[in-house]
């Protein structure tokens, strides 16, 4: 088992590519891995799909008003812990 971060930058992609790229990336997560998605806006359309697919998420504020989203499988405590540690280093998301 490994604890690892899969990072994707979707900030230069037009809709709906960020959503499609993020969903594909979550499907490829291995045990212990979490997804760190870098975007410039809050991906509201992604949240519903994440819940349907049994993923958890935490949205944080990055540099220059960026939106940083951390995603993990709910049945993967190691990934969740790693994601929480990484997300905890950033302030909560504010519009």
């Amino acid at each position, binding site marked *: 088992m490994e604890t690892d971060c899969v990072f994707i930058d979707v900030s*230069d*992609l*037009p*809709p*709906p590519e960020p*959503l499609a790229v993020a*969903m594909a990336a979550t*499907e490829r997560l291995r045990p212990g891995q979490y997804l760190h998605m870098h975007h*410039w*806006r*809050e991906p*509201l*359309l992604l*949240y*519903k*799909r994440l*819940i349907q*697919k049994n993923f958890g*998420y935490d*949205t944080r504020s990055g540099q220059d*008003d960026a939106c940083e989203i951390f995603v993990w499988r709910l049945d993967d405590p190691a990934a969740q812990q790693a994601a929480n540690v990484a997300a905890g280093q950033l302030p909560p998301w504010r*519009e």
Partner: protein
Amino acid sequence: MSYGVLSLAQTPPASVPLSYMLTAPVFAIVAAILILVYPESVQNRWSPVMLSVTHLLVLGFAVMVMFGAVQQLLPVLAGVTFNRPRLVSLSLYVGLIFGVSALCIGMFLSNASLFLVAVLFLSVTVAAFFVLMMLGLLRSEANRDSIQGIRLALLSFLVSASLGLYMAAGHSLPEIPLARELTSLHLTWGLLGWIGLLVITVSYQVVPMFQITPRYPKEIVRWLTPFIFLSLVFWSLIEILPNSALSVSWVSVIPKTGVMAGLLTFCLMTLWLQHKRRRKLPDVTLDFFRLALSCMMLAIFIWSLPESWLADQLNREVLIGALLIIGFTLSVISGMLYKIVPFLIWLHLTNQIDMSTRWQKNIPNMKQIIPEVHGRWQFRLHLGTVLVMIAAMYQGEWSIRLAAVLFLMSNLYLLRNLILAVVIYRKVLISQPAGES
């Protein structure tokens, strides 16, 4: 986090926005045919044909698309939810179609009874739309500057529609005077308030998102729409109170200059952001936007010229109106349709087809739903319409007829593109095997 989920659960079905968006070009096609048959009427803004054409384009095309888009946007942007979205949408849709049709035929035939029918349908539809959207926005927990812009646009719409309905009632009811002096306020609140503020507000979201530009500066997002709205209020007071201290010539120039400066700021800022876009790929929506912004700036330039500089005052007003309606409004809306319609179709397909199944591979991407080449052909026809239309203000009937033919072809092409997009949507849904959703 939960509000995003709640809002999406209430997103109306695809048929809601798409019915409005597919109907809009039909009204523009009727307008083009009227101009083609009666080219001589275009030179006079008060002619029945011209009044009918103006309302076919503004209400039949622009308001039709905006009604559909706002019903789709508010759940996602503001977390606004509607009970029974399909019933609400169908009622507004039917009311708008009957109201616009009665109004435009009534104007064309100068028929008082049809004006009355139009007043009844449009007043109920407008009031219902305004109350539903405003209540939704007031309940919304989203506290964003973009929501403020939509509120101000809705208020402007109410002012413009109320003035218009009052004038329409003056055509049909003897007890109500025909108040033609309200026309300029009706036009100003409709074109610059409702359409202008809504386009600005939607652009704050759509331009950075779809054209991959930097975001609009926060100061502009926060202050520009209230500034334009307050300038419009001040402008209206001067118009309503012609003998007050406000009507002193140097004072009366301030709000008009404020509105023009506000709109010019939006145009220049958007062009600058588009110049800074991170993916410099050909994009028909970008071209529609640039044409729209150029037309708005040309209209502002002509508007700012002393009236004595242009010999024919009527043509000046017709030219400004044509630049604002066909050049700005229809361009920007057509450009947005090429993003919004494929995006909505893709979104609703992925909502209905489980993305983890193998069937997701059958979901077409945005460029397959409306290929760029077809959008570009329609853009060329629309650009030709605008250029010939400007020339037509100084030429004879033949150039007006040519502009009408180009406008007709442009809107037929737009309708074709939108219908084929919906055909693709239906085909994918029908071909989906049972058990995959």
